[in-house]
């Protein structure tokens, strides 16, 4: 199971152009219904995490012992793309998905740049922590799934129809932005910011202006200036994540305001 970046980029672009696919369908490669039956695959996922630990550890060991000439860092990307676990975590808890990519590229760039082994080991440790944290999140999601407490991951067309649903969708998309940026798909991340603004935020900002115009203006600046510029200037995953987290806080307030406004809305007929 290998995926090159080009087809994945095309798949994402098509999904966004259609504008009607649910976000989970934007994961690396094909999202199968497996993500709706997590508990049946927890054993596989655990094995995959251990396998990944071994693979990344071996690459870093080779770098430590034999230098960068003996290491093919493209493998670091391929390992992660080999496993089914990536779609499980991408559909359940995107923030950790971004951290995994951040650490993988941390190792890769460290090796490619000939960094001291301690720097590379530090990134390897971050990757291990992120992988195990991700496995924990998937196990928790599996429990919730069995209890019917989480929505089924949608692989068919679906769009949010109420303002609070739109806000939730925006927040999910922004997590994706960090993930795609961490994956070094800068153009995809930028397009996702732009499309989220046009396809989602513009639909709710009108109602929001009446309740907190400064909040809307603030978010408009975040969407159109702060976040895309941070990505364009390659400010780093932590900086982009900080911007997104600040936006999430503002969006939580927006959701509360919009939900209250909807309660007071008059009837059509």
């Amino acid at each position: 199971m290998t995926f090159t970046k080009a087809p994945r980029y095309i798949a994402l672009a098509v999904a966004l152009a259609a504008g009607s696919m649910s976000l989970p369908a934007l994961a690396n490669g094909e999202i199968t219904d497996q993500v709706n039956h997590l508990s049946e695959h927890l054993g596989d996922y655990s094995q995959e995490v251990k396998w990944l630990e071994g693979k990344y550890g071996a690459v870093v060991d080779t770098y430590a012992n034999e230098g960068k000439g003996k290491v093919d860092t493209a493998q670091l990307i391929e390992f992660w793309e080999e496993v089914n676990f990536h779609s499980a975590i991408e559909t359940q808890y995107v923030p950790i998905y971004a951290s995994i990519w951040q650490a993988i590229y941390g190792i890769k760039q460290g090796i490619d740049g000939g960094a001291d082994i301690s720097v590379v080991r530090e990134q390897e440790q971050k990757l291990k922590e992120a992988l195990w944290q991700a496995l924990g999140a998937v196990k928790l999601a599996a429990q919730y799934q069995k209890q019917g407490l989480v929505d089924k991951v949608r692989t068919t067309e679906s769009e949010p129809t109420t303002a609070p649903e739109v806000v939730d969708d925006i927040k999910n998309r922004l997590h994706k932005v960090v993930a795609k940026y961490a994956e070094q798909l800068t153009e995809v991340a930028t397009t996702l910011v732009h499309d989220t603004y046009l396809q989602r935020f513009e639909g709710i900002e009108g109602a929001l202006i009446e309740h907190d115009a400064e909040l809307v203006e603030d978010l408009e600046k975040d969407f159109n200036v702060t976040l895309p510029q941070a990505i364009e200037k390659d400010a780093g995953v932590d900086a982009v994540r900080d911007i997104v987290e600040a936006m999430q806080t503002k969006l939580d307030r927006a959701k509360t305001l919009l939900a209250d406004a909807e309660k007071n809305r008059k009837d059509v007929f």
Partner: protein
Amino acid sequence: MHRRTFLQGLGAAAVFGSMPFASRLSWAASPGAVSVDSLPPLVGDLTLYLGRGEGGLYENVLEAIQKRNPKLNLRIRRGGSAALANTIVAEAKAGVKRADLFWAVDTGSVGLVTDQQLAKPLPSDLTGQLKSGFQYPGWTPVTGRVRTLPYNTERVQPDAIPDDIMALADSDLAIGWAPAYASFQSFVTAMRLLEGNKATANWLRGVNRNAKKYAGELGVVMGVERGEVDLGFANHYYTLRLKSGKPDANVDLAFTKNDAGCLVNASGILALSDGDLPVNFMRYLLSREVQSYLATEAYEIPLVEGVAPPQGLPAMDTLSPPDIDLRKLADLRPTLNIMRDVGVL
């Protein structure tokens, strides 16, 4: 040159800020608009392709229609208006027809479909409900939005604002604009179609001398209100919504005359299937109740005769939008080329 058409048309500007919120949103529809009570019940299957609307308010309208017509089986496919228009055209080329109706938020998307002769002709009693200038044989506008000049009431007097959009390129007023914003680009497209490419490029250069750039058009209105600039370019609803939340805001609306500066763009709906059901569904959207709902809740401009506009806007017949086929606003590429050549994008 400096004659003005602005809020004084209704005497609304003076009282707008002092009226309680509830009364500012209350509207009495004039006799003549068709009530939903007089419309036939909707029975049968309909598939609607719905371009994304105003934060769930279109959804509220559809839900209300569905609730009122329990024997209507309404299936909705949602997406961006342009994407759905392209889908309809592609489906037609493949010999497939899935949509009975297409409700788009912009007329450019309507044009993509009507240009392919896919829209069914509409009865004249339906199109006749629309205001003069908004009657089309193959589609009907639902609600509109007008381009405006929001201005800071502390920094500039209304009579200092030209009522000719082209004259603003020669003025010394500090101007706020959002060149990357889709509505602004539609406005520049209208100018290009009305005045030509060269005049539009010169206008962009002229305005750019005194312009401050904002990310979006709410930002423009907020910048005007804070006094960062004297006036700006924006759709009407930003100012009205800002003033509904902040009645003492230092901003009011001015309008140009007979040019792109007071372009009225619209959302529109068309039928892709024959028969009474799609047309009768459209009658519900043009009913007094739905038009009033969208005017009061979404600040959109009703385009049906006999339904009043959102308060704070002059009556439509006091505005003088340019005579332009709105469907041509889809031709955006030459506009973007000019804006890039001039260096404003």
